[in-house]
């Protein structure tokens, strides 16, 4: 800790002057050098700074528990994960859930379903005829959880090349959302309303007047964690925070989206239109939105603990 602060004594000033993340990469490297990775420190770091993209996947894997904190066991664990993945993959192939033409995302979904024991049983019946299979699969997709998984998997697929890693990241990310953040995710709409009241009362009034407050795309925002809403480059930065344990950032991203497109939203009168607009926001300015959202999150929730 002592040497860390000594190395970082300038970082405070960098931040004051406006340079962010100057020393971050170094400090992250130092953090990653520890034999037993300190997960808490990594969490704090990830919350405080944007992760360098070259370490992002590693950090995510560590934070999500895909690889243990010990470097020694990384290879072994990864081997296990890989074997597990391919085993299941093979099994799914054998029972003809998937084939070569199945999209990667669907493969992930099937693997996840199999792993969680939720593999649709109807499928066995469906083997009778191919037509039924496709229709059933189609029906399956409509399930909200699966949809969430698919969307997130699609986004993750863009970020990660290796399918095994990708699968594990998606799976663990979804599991984390479903287990760790389940309760807090349900509170987020209320929190959003509260912060919107602070930030822009008028917009809130307008939304309330249009009865759009209840119809905002909360699923897209909070359940799917903006997957499919923001481009991957921006999404990564949001997910950094989510993975590191703070799902409140989702509220601020949503808030910032509302504030950024305030004029357009005020111009729209019906809840349907607003929802439709928010589900398809323009993709050009999302980096700025995310940056602002992070700032907003910092100001409202305070800087995460300084003791990195």
């Amino acid at each position, binding site marked *: 800790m002592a040497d860390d602060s000594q190395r970082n004594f300038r970082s405070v000033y960098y931040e004051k002057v406006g340079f962010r993340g100057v020393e971050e990469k170094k400090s992250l490297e130092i953090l990653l050098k520890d034999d*037993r990775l300190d997960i808490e420190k990594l969490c704090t770091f990830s919350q405080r700074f944007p992760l360098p993209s070259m370490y992002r996947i590693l950090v995510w894997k560590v934070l999500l*528990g895909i*690889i*243990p*904190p*010990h470097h*020694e*066991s990384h290879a*072994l*664990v990864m081997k*296990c*994960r890989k*074997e*597990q993945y391919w*085993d*299941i993959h093979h*099994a*799914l192939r*054998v*029972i003809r859930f998937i084939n070569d033409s199945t999209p990667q995302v669907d493969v992930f979904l099937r693997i996840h379903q*199999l*792993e969680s*024991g939720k*593999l649709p*049983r109807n499928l*066995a*019946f469906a*083997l009778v005829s191919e037509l039924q299979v496709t229709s059933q699969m189609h029906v399956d997709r409509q399930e909200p959880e699966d949809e969430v998984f698919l969307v997130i998997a699609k986004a993750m697929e863009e970020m990660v090349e290796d399918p095994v890693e990708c699968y594990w990241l998606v799976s663990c990310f979804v599991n984390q959302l479903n287990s760790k953040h389940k309760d807090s995710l349900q509170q987020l709409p209320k929190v959003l309303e509260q912060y919107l009241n602070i930030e822009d009362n008028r917009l809130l009034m307008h939304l309330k007047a249009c009865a759009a407050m209840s119809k905002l795309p909360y699923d897209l925002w909070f359940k799917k964690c903006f997957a499919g809403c923001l481009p991957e480059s921006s999404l990564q930065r949001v997910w950094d925070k989510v993975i590191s344990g703070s799902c409140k950032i989702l509220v601020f991203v949503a808030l910032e989206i509302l504030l950024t497109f305030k004029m357009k939203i005020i111009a729209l009168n019906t809840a349907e239109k607003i929802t439709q607009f928010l589900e398809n926001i323009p993709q050009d300015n999302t980096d700025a939105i995310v940056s602002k959202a992070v700032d907003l999150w910092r100001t409202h929730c305070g800087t995460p603990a300084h003791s990195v």
Partner: protein
Amino acid sequence: MAQQGNVGELLSMLDSPILGVLEDITAAFKDNLVCDRGPMLVNNLVDYYLETNSQQALHILSTLQEPHDKHLLDKINDYMGKAATRLPTLSLLGHVIRRQPSWKHKLSQAPLLLSLLKCLKTDTDVVVLTTGVLVLITMLPMIPQSGKQYLHDFFGIFGRLSAWCLQNPGHVAEIYLVHLHASVYALFHRLYGMYPCNFVSFLRSHYSMKENLETFEEVVKPMMEHVRIHPELVTGSKDHELDPRRWKRLETHDVVIECAKISLDPAEASYEDGYYSVSRKLCTSLKHHQTDPSASSYIDIQSSYGTSTPYSTPRLTLSQMPGQLPQILSPQSSRLSTEPQQVTIWSPSAVCGMTTPPTSPGVVTSESSQSASQPYSKAFGTSAGGKGTPLGTPATSPPPPCTSDDFVHVSLPSAAATPPKKEDKPDPGRPLLYRQQNVINSDKSLDIPSSKSSVTLSDLAEFLGGLSFEDSAEKDREEDAISKEISEITTDAEHMVPRGGFDSPFYRTNESLSGSQKKTHSAVSSVQGHSQTSEPLTSLDKPGPENARETPKQTFTPIDKPCGGSGESPAGNREGTSGETSILTPSPCKVPAQRRVVFGSGQPPLYEHLFEVALPKTAYLFVGKKTEELLKKAKGTQEDDCMSSTSPVEVLDRLIQQGADAHTKELNKLSLPSKSADWTHFGGSPPSDEIHTLRNQLLLLHNQLLYERFKRQQHALRNRRLLRKVIKATALEEHNAAMKDQLKLQEKEIQALKLSLQKEQARYHQFQEEHDNIVAQLHSQIRQLQHDREEFYNQSQELQTKLEDCRNMIADLRLELKKANNKVCHTELLLSQVSQKLSNSESVQQQMEFLNRQLLVLGEVNELYLEQLQHKHTDTTKEVEMLHAAFRKELEKAKSCVQQQSQRLDASQKRIAELESQLAKKDHLFLEQKKYLEDVKIQARGQLQAVESRYKAQKRITQAFELEILDLFGRLEKSSLLKKLEDDKTEAAEAAEERVDCGNEDTVAGNSEETIGRNGETKPPSTRGSSSSKGGSSSELSTPEKPQNQRLSSRWETSVLLEPSSTVPLTVGSLPSSKSFLGMKARELFRNKSESQCDEEGVTINRLSDALKTELCKDPSMESKAPPSPDNLSLSPKLQESSVGQLHIMDYNETHHDHS
């Protein structure tokens, strides 16, 4: 030819006395003329007319239409060539032309014109010449621009005839010459009026010759005195006046009037311009009078005439016309209410002064010649008593010697008379002329005499002012005369030509040259007649200002009086003065002389032509009024008077008059019905000649008359047009007045609006000020509030800083608290250490005390032995010595023993410290070991988790596979069932059916179990499925964990399938491989340290056991062993709390301890 005969009959019937036949014939002729285009009928008509002089033929000829004009003109031209028919032809031509046919413009091209000119140039018959000249004069305005090529012919004719007039080459009767002269005079006017430049140049060239000089002197020059300078002489040129454009706009009557305009001859002239100006003024003043409420005073005054006030109303007139000619102000004329005639004063001199300035000098000369007026003034002057009379009389009665040359002297007495003027003492019995003058004016008039001598040098305006004064003076004099006359008239009122009251004009001079306005209060001349004509003289002061106010607009106050009447009085005067004296002799030679004399007087014709001018005006204005009749009468009288004028026309007129008079006289005397008898008696000359002469004369007169009629027609034509213009003008003026009224109303409205606007503005300003005040107030409030806010803000900041201070203090205090707590903890620790040490030292002290007590006891024993020794000293000195030595030895022994004890104590204490440090080391080692272990465990757990998840996945896979297999089985069986069913159908074997039923039941039961298991239990359905499929192995499912562990190695594969997930950590913990790994590690770790420790421990314990065999030695060793035990105890619960795996690790520890 038959037609010709027919025409002859018709012509003969033309003069039928029967009216019906006459009309029929005329109609027939007209029809013929319309149908027939040949020259025959016209020729016949002309012939007939020349033969019979038929009026009907003349009428038809003069109304000939277009296609026949050529024939007519040709025919006339034919006859013109013959001397015998020349005269009737000319008269016919004259008739035709006077009708102004539509083809009159063709005249200029017709050969007739040439022959007419030739005739005029060559003929010697006076009658023919006169008639021809008149025809020419009539024709000229009709063909103004086309006749220009004959211009020199015209001039030549004029030259010839004017010379003829003088020289009389034909020696015709003088009476003809009069006619000829008159026609030449008319030609002169016409030529001068139409072509002034050319004509003047002709005159110049023609009369520059010596032979013509006399003619010029005698004939032309007098004519020239009757014309003004033509404006064209100034502005135009020879070419310009021949320009067709000039004539295009003018109609025939326009040309005639143009010519009349430049004439000064009252018989010829027309003063339309001057007339217009005057009439306009009259109109306005009239209207003003009617509309102006101040005019009521005038009406009142008029109505008050009936009262007994003996004075006539004086009207003060006042005019201000700066920088202009003196203006006439004729006040309200006195009116004789009893008299039927309303007489108004027209002040002709004013108009003269304006229109013809040179008249004033004329007045001067005329004054001298007027003998008739002189006596009046003289008489008046004498009656007034000269200068002694203080009233207006001296002003109006100039002294007799004061004649033409010095009129200004007249104003001198008037100036002298001004001071008493204001006293206003009227003479009831006498006609009073009242004149009021301003002092300034009198001063001015005083100045004038000095400059009068050199009039040419002095300013024109001044001169004019003087002139006006002269005029006024003259007027006064006239009035004096008139008043006198009136007084005479009143005595024999009925005798005289109706000549009512008169008016006294007053002049108001205003001269702008001096810069100061001179106000002349002209006094009103109040004319007083006798009791019946006496008029009430209202006080001068009362109407004065009113009039003074209203008169500036009025240049001519007497509105309701006919102007003609005004002209009457001077005319009457003239009649009295010059009319009697100038009786015309018919001799033409005397005419010029006479004329010259009359011209010398100058004044009368001026008045007369003014009258002429005024006449039409009054005719227009007061048509239908009573006064019109009077005017007519006046005109009649005036015409009589006009005989005295000496223009050729007048001469001619007078000649006719005389002739007519003589004729009637003779007729009356002789009472002869026949003319010839009359003439024979009258003249005595041969009757034939006389008759011829008379007939010619008659003819000439007729021609003259026709010419005059033509002129009258032209005038009438023009008058109609002018009347329309006047009506238009009056309508426009009324419209103007209405507009002015409207304007006034609108101005009032504007005024009201402006007032309201001002009010509104004031209100607005007020509002604005209030608003400003409120704004200022609000601003101050805002400032105050802001100030308060800042104060509050400061306060809050202070409070916040205080709060922060407090927080800091609290934080400091907390820190201090922590420190204190630390200190307390530390001191407690120290205290426990010290207490330990204390107990140690206490035990050592107890030993020491024990040793001291032993020493003390030994000492006492020694003393006892010494006493025994002393007692037995004597006895046993040797013994004593021996004893001494023994005791000494014992003492030494004891001392060394003590020393040894203390040394041992030190050693043991050291040992304790050493052991303690060793213990701490060991603890640390333990901790490290534990940490490492944990680390390793975590690592292992991570790996395990991965493996476990893999395992789980494998399980899922197997489940899936099983599911798949089951499904496939189900389907297989189904298909086989179906097959069997099919077989049944074919074979229908009962046993087979039973078997199939059993199989069916089994599968059904299996399936139902499967569903139950899935719903109710956590166990995977596959186990049941597998168990059911395997059959008897179900008993093994209930096997407890321990046996499973025992059989672990043998049943590993099955346990993978069967074991529940919760047992996994236990199995892992009990895995031999892991045990060996952990044990190896633990052994490695502990062997080095524990062995060395044990060795040392063994050494120290041996030493201790060696050193302390006594009880005392056991206690500290026990105590020194005590501290590690609580550590172990405290460690164990921690470990117990941790996971099962850790419990196992503790077990290892225990076993290790046990082993060690």
